């Protein structure tokens, strides 16, 4: 527990919906609605879910590209201290809660600003889904990769060039590519450039926001292998957001399944694939088309669409689509509970019986 690089507690991100004559806030899109997530150093946590489930928002909020509506994000904090603050926050003593609030200013990524935040930016980075959009079309590769270094003046100007060349080498590009614009590259190469940029500041943590879903199958394999290699080489921690389950299976140690702003189930990859507990996970896994015509599996076809996150269903958010729904599911929201006292967690009232 004390090895956690990132510890997310009760994170919420709401987007206001305005309406009426005066454009008042009339509702919220509850993109992320109470998520607890811990990531250990050096692991790759796969965050899967369908579009609109809030996985990308969760990632971007953890990176503080957006400010969370509520919740705490501890990055690289001592585990004991985190528990202490959390305990104080939840204590009945108002004074203790106030003290905890003061302590959070220096610990909670969501409350940091200015210099503290900037210093943290070196240690956390992001790779986006579509490299066509995430690289400034009017900048040369040289400047794109150097941006994290020059923006924070981390490296002396005369050393920047050498560092950029080194980074390009790491991701499998050459110095020939320095003086080119992004549009002169293929999709896979652009993603390599984006990865080189993410590596520039020697980060500890990289958010992978669907890094291969805009790429072709054969190129996807190149990038996945590269990411895997880099993770081992630099002892990186990944949060790998994707909707592609086989990709997640290939690259992640652990998986968290999200549904409508909440985590439905999480645990080690192999265990989840071998024995999914949540009905949603089961349906999701059974729906993956497996590239093997010999195996014919029974599919669980869910009915209906993902509900609107403005008005999530009461009780268990999955209940309108769930085949095993009981009365309790309609009224009481299940909490994420540990299955075996360890990492395996599930938020379902009926996981024991099913």
């Amino acid at each position, binding site marked *: 527990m004390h090895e956690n690089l990132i510890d997310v507690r009760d994170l919420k991100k709401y987007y206001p919906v305005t309406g009426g004559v005066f454009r008042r806030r009339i509702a919220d899109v509850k993109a992320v609605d109470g998520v607890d997530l811990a990531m250990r150093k050096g692991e790759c946590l796969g965050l899967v879910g369908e579009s609109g489930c809030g996985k990308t928002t969760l990632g971007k909020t953890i990176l503080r590209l957006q400010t969370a509506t509520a919740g705490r994000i501890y990055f690289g904090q001592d585990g004991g201290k985190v528990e202490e603050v959390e305990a104080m926050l939840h204590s009945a003593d108002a004074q203790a809660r106030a003290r905890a609030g003061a302590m959070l200013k220096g610990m909670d990524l969501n409350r940091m600003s200015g210099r503290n935040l900037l210093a943290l930016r070196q240690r956390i*980075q*992001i790779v986006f889904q579509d490299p066509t959009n995430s690289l400034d*079309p*009017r*900048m040369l590769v040289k400047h794109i990769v150097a*941006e994290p270094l020059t*923006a924070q003046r981390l490296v002396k100007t005369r050393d920047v060039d050498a560092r950029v060349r080194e980074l390009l080498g790491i991701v499998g590009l050459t110095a020939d590519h320095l003086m080119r614009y992004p549009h002169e590259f293929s999709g896979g190469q652009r993603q390599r450039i984006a990865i080189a940029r993410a590596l520039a500041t020697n980060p500890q943590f990289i958010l992978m926001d669907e890094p291969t879903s805009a790429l072709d199958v054969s190129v996807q394999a190149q990038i996945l292998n590269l990411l895997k290699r880099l993770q081992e080489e630099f002892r990186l921690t990944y949060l790998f957001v994707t909707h592609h389950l086989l990709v997640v299976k290939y690259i992640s140690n652990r998986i968290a399944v999200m549904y409508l702003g909440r985590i439905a189930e999480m645990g080690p990859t192999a265990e989840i694939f071998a024995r999914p507990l949540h009905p949603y996970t089961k349906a999701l896994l059974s729906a993956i088309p497996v590239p093997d015509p010999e195996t014919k599996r029974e599919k669980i076809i869910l009915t209906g669409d993902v509900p609107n996150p403005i008005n999530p269903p009461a009780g268990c958010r999955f209940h309108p689509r769930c085949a095993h729904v009981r009365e309790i599911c309609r009224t009481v929201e299940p909490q994420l509970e540990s299955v075996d006292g360890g990492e395996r967690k599930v938020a379902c009232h009926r996981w024991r019986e099913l």
Partner: protein
Amino acid sequence: METRTDQRQLRPMHPRLREMLFTAKRFLRNPLSVIGLSLIVIFGVIAILAPVLEPPTNRDPYKIPHNGYRIEPSPPSAAHPLGTTQQQYDMLYGLVWGARSAFKIGVLVVAANLLIGIILGALAGYFGGIVDEVIMRIADIFYAIPFLVMAMALVVAIGRGLKAVIIVLIILEWPSYTRVIRSDILVTRGKDFILAARASGASHLRIIFSHILPNAMYSVLILASLNIGTTILTAAALSFLGLGSETGTADWGQIVSLCRNWIVGTPGNRFAYWYTVFIPGFVISLFVLGWNLLGDAVRDVFDPRMRRR
């Protein structure tokens, strides 16, 4: 085969230069843009060489020389290659120096508007919120009054003359620039590379100047080149109505207003005074056409859909 340029094996050339060459090549492939560019270049040369082409005789070169006050225009002759207007102002002199006035008006107005538009548009677009609301509502008010009508009222209030026309056009045209820049900035601001820059720890100023503006500049440049044409048209219209420059100033709209009474010829020759009506308006049209063609070409060249993938 890895990239396109590999195939062409270009000499090592600075990529920015390479891009410019590529753009220029596309530009020159379209005959209309070449026509537009040549028109502007020709007018530019005329404006620059005005003192050589038509040496000024007055102390103020923008005063058109005239001999006598005879009311009828006179047809082209050796002394007056393009004839004279009403009150014997020399047409050629007026047109040549008028080119200078036209450039002065166009460039001054558009440059000032670019500056105002970029500053206000960037403020509104990047920071949003209350700043955005205030700037855009003010722009709405300016939009709510027909342009030429408002320009007339303002010229009356400020006092006539070319200077007043320039000031008025600056006051009235900034909202369209601000709008265009703002909406482009809004689009750019939502792109992933802006988020990436923020994740890299780039400051607001750095993001605005090195990411947002370079990407959001193009449509405003298109607008600017198209707007030089309309600016000239409005200035000419004001002069024509008698609200612009004084009589006898080398200003195209002003020269056209001198010809207003000569559309009906003499009983024997119904087109007797055609030159005095036709020539100055034709020159204005060519000038505006040049800018419009140029603007269209700029739009085509920079249209993201027309660019490479």
